[in-house]
C-alpha cells in the first residue's frame, strides 16, 4: 500500500513536472531575446557608426571579397536568387542567401531584429518595412542612395514607405504588381476581343460573366476569398484607380467603408451572387490562389505580376491594368524592399551588392530578362520589354501604383484574425451590415500603440 502511495506521488510529481515543462516550452518558444535588451541596433542606424566609409565614396560600396549574409522570403526567392547568383559570379564579395518560408518570415525577422542578429542584407515585404525602420533595425542609407548616378530613377514607392523622419532606409529589390491576367483563348470563345481588356471595373465584370457563360468547367473569375492580403493586393487598386483612398495619409484612419470602396465591393459581390467565380473562392486562404488561373479555366482575374513567367504556353495570357469604377487604373506596388541591417559589420560591402542590384546590368540582364518588373523608371522600356508588350503594360502601370503606409499593416490588414477580413468577407459573402463597425475596428488597430 505504501509502495502504491509512493508511486502515485511520483506520478503526480511527474505529471506536474510534465505540465510545467510543456508550458515552459510553449512560453519559452515565445522568447527571442537572449540578452534581454532587445536592442535592434543603435536605434538611429547612423551610417557614421561604420568604419569603411571612405571606400564607399563612389556610391557603389566596397567589393573586397567579404561574405555578405542575406535573408529573403520564399515568395520572392526566385528573383532574389537570380540577383545573388549573378552578383556572386561577377564580384569578389559573396552573398549567402537564406530563404525562409513566407509565413514564418515576419516572426523570424522580428526575433532576429530584437536580438540584434539580422543578416547584413534584409529583404522584406514592403508593407512591413515601416514596422522595422521606426525601431532602427535598418541602417540610414539616404546618402548612399543619393550618391547613385540613377538615384532619381529608382521606383519611389518602396523608398517612400521606407522613409522615416526624412531618412531613407530601403530600396526596391523585387517589384510585384497586381494586374489583370486574362485568358485570350477564352475571350475569343466568348466572343470578346482579346485585344480589348476591360476599361472599367464594370466591364471587367461583364467580361467575366460572358466567359462564365461558356459553361462546363470554365469560370469567369477567381479571388482569394479568405485571404486578407489577397483582397488588399487585388481590390484596393480599383479604389485608388479613381483617385480615392483606403487610409488617411499617415495611415491612422481607415476609409474602407466609403461609398467608393463599397462600389468596388458591390461589383465583386454581384459576381459572387451570380456564381461567376470558380468553386473554392470563399475558402481560398492564400497559398493556392495564384494556381487557379494557369489551369486555363478562368477568364480574367487580378494576379501578381511576378507570376507572368510561370504562365503555361497552352493558352495565351493577356495582361491589363486593374481598373476602377470610373475607368482609372492603378496597381498595388508590392514585392520586397531591401536594406542594410543596423547590426551589419560589412555595411559597405552590403551596399555594394544592393547598389549593383539597381544597376543597368542587373535590372536589364537579370530582372527584365526574366520577365520581372524593373525597379527603375528609366528602364521601364528595355530590350526585353520591347519584345513583350505585357511587360510594357506592367512597367507602365507601376508608375501609377501605390504602396500603402502604416505602422500596423500586418495587424490591420494581413492578419487572418484581424479586422479587415471580416469587413470585406462580411460585405461580399454576407449582408455587409457590420462594415462601419469593422472599419472602426481597423482604425482602432491603426491607432493602437
Amino acid at each position, binding site marked *: 500500500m505504501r509502495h502504491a502511495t509512493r508511486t502515485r506521488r511520483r506520478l503526480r510529481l511527474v505529471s506536474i513536472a510534465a505540465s*510545467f515543462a510543456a508550458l515552459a516550452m510553449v*512560453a519559452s518558444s515565445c*522568447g527571442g531575446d537572449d540578452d534581454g535588451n*532587445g536592442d535592434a541596433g543603435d536605434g538611429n542606424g547612423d551610417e557614421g557608426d561604420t568604419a569603411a566609409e571612405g571606400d564607399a565614396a563612389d556610391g557603389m560600396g566596397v567589393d573586397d571579397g567579404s561574405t555578405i549574409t542575406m535573408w529573403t522570403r520564399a515568395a520572392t526567392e526566385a528573383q532574389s536568387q537570380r540577383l545573388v547568383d549573378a552578383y556572386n559570379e561577377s564580384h569578389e564579395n559573396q552573398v549567402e542567401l537564406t530563404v525562409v518560408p513566407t509565413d514564418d518570415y515576419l516572426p523570424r525577422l522580428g526575433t532576429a531584429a*530584437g536580438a540584434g542578429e539580422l543578416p547584413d542584407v534584409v529583404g522584406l515585404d514592403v508593407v512591413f518595412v515601416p514596422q522595422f525602420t521606426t525601431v532602427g533595425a535598418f541602417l540610414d542609407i539616404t546618402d548612399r542612395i543619393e550618391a547613385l548616378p540613377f538615384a532619381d530613377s529608382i521606383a519611389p514607392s518602396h523608398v517612400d514607405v521606407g522613409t522615416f523622419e526624412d531618412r531613407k532606409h530601403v530600396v526596391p529589390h523585387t517589384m510585384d504588381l497586381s494586374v489583370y491576367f486574362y485568358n485570350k483563348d477564352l475571350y475569343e470563345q466568348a466572343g470578346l476581343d482579346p485585344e480589348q481588356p476591360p476599361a472599367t471595373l464594370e466591364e471587367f465584370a461583364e467580361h467575366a460573366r460572358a466567359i462564365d457563360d461558356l459553361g462546363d468547367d470554365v469560370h469567369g473569375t477567381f479571388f482569394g476569398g*479568405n485571404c486578407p492580403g489577397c483582397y488588399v493586393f487585388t481590390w484596393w487598386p480599383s479604389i485608388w484607380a479613381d483617385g480615392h483612398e483606403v487610409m488617411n495619409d499617415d495611415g491612422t484612419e481607415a476609409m474602407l467603408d466609403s461609398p467608393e470602396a463599397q462600389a468596388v465591393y458591390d461589383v465583386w459581390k454581384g459576381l459572387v451572387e451570380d456564381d461567376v467565380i470558380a*468553386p*473554392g473562392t470563399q475558402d481560398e486562404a492564400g497559398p493556392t490562389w495564384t494556381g487557379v488561373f494557369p489551369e486555363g479555366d478562368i477568364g480574367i482575374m487580378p494576379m501578381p505580376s511576378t507570376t507572368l513567367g510561370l504562365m503555361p504556353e497552352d493558352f495565351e495570357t493577356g495582361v491589363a491594368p486593374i481598373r476602377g469604377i470610373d475607368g482609372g487604373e492603378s496597381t498595388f506596388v508590392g514585392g520586397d524592399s531591401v536594406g542594410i541591417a543596423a547590426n551589419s559589420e560589412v555595411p559597405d560591402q552590403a551596399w555594394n551588392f544592393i547598389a549593383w542590384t539597381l544597376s543597368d546590368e542587373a535590372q536589364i540582364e537579370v530582372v527584365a530578362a526574366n520577365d520581372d518588373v524593373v525597379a527603375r523608371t528609366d528602364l521601364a522600356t528595355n530590350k526585353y520589354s520591347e519584345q513583350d508588350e505585357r511587360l510594357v503594360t506592367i512597367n507602365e502601370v507601376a508608375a501609377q501604383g501605390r504602396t500603402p503606409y502604416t505602422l500596423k499593416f500586418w495587424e490591420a490588414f494581413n492578419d487572418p484574425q484581424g479586422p479587415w477580413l471580416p469587413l470585406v468577407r462580411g460585405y461580399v459573402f454576407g449582408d455587409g451590415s457590420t462594415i462601419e463597425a469593422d472599419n472602426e475596428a481597423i482604425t482602432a488597430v491603426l491607432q493602437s500603440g
Partner: protein
Amino acid sequence: MRSPVARGEEAQAPPRPPAARRPWWRSRAAKGAAYASPAAAFVVMFFVVPLLLVGRMSASEWPLLQGDQGTNFPDNFDGMTDDRLFWPAVGFTLKYTVIVVAILLVLAMIMALIVQERRPGVTFFRTAYFLPVALGLASASLLFWGFFSPSIGPIDPILRDLGLIDGNIRWIGTPNMALLSTIALVVWKFAGFFMIILLVGLQSIPTEVYEAARIDGANRVQTFFRVTLPLLRPSLALVLILSITGSLLAFDQFFILTNGGPDNSTVTVVMLIYREAFQRFDLGTAAALSVVVLVVLLVVNIVQFRFLRRGTD
C-alpha cells in the same frame, strides 16, 4: 531502563576508536548528487530559467523589437481579456478538448481491444493503427490541408467522379466543418498512440483475474466494466493527461490547416500566444497568456489526479 548486567558489559567493553569519517565528496549523497547534476543542470537551463524569464516578461512591457521596457504588472494580464479573440479562443479550445479527448479515449480503447489478442492479421492492424503516429503533426496537417484544399485537393474530384457530390465540399470552409476536419486529422494521427498505451495496460492485467470473473459468472460487459476498466485506471490516467494537455495546447494543426478560420472560428489559446509574440511582437502579453495557460494546466492535472486516485487508496 537498562539492566545492571547490561550496564556492566558495557562498562567492560574496550573503548571503540572513533569511526574514520569519509570526506563529504566521497559520501553516497555526494555521488548521487554528482550523477544527478547533469540532469539538474539541464532542467535549470531549459526549464527553470525559461520559466523565470517568462514570469518576468509577463510582468513587463516587452516588445519583441525593442526589448524590456520595464515592469508594467498587471497590465499584460488585464489587457489580455480585452482582446476580442480571447474568450472565443478559450471557449473554442475547451470545446475542442472535450470533443477530441472523448473521441480519442473511446476509439483508442476500441482499437486496443481489437488488437489485444493474438490472432491472424492482428499485426497488420496494430501497424496500420500506429503508422500515423510516425508522421509529424505539422506534416500530417499539411497533408490534410492538401486533401481538403478546394483548389488542389483530390477528395472532391474523386467524390464528384463517383457521382456522390456536386461541386465542392467546404472541408475547412465553415466553422463546424473546419472543427470536424481538424478533429479527423488529430484522431487519425493520435488514436494509434493512445491505443498502444491502453494495449500495454490491457496486457498487464493478469489472466487469472478474468478467469475468476468468468467463474463468478460475469458476462463480457460486466467483465469490461468491473474488471478491465478499474485495472486499466493508471493507463487511462496517462491517456487522459496526455490528451487533455495536448488538446489544451493545440497549435500546429489549426495553424496549418485552418489558420484560425473561417471567420476566427478555430483560434486556439496557443495561437493567441503565437500571434501576440511573433505577429504583434508583444512578448509581454504573450508571456502573460503563457503563465495563465500554465496555471490552468496545473490545476487541470491536479484535479485529474485527485479524481483518478479516488478508489485506488
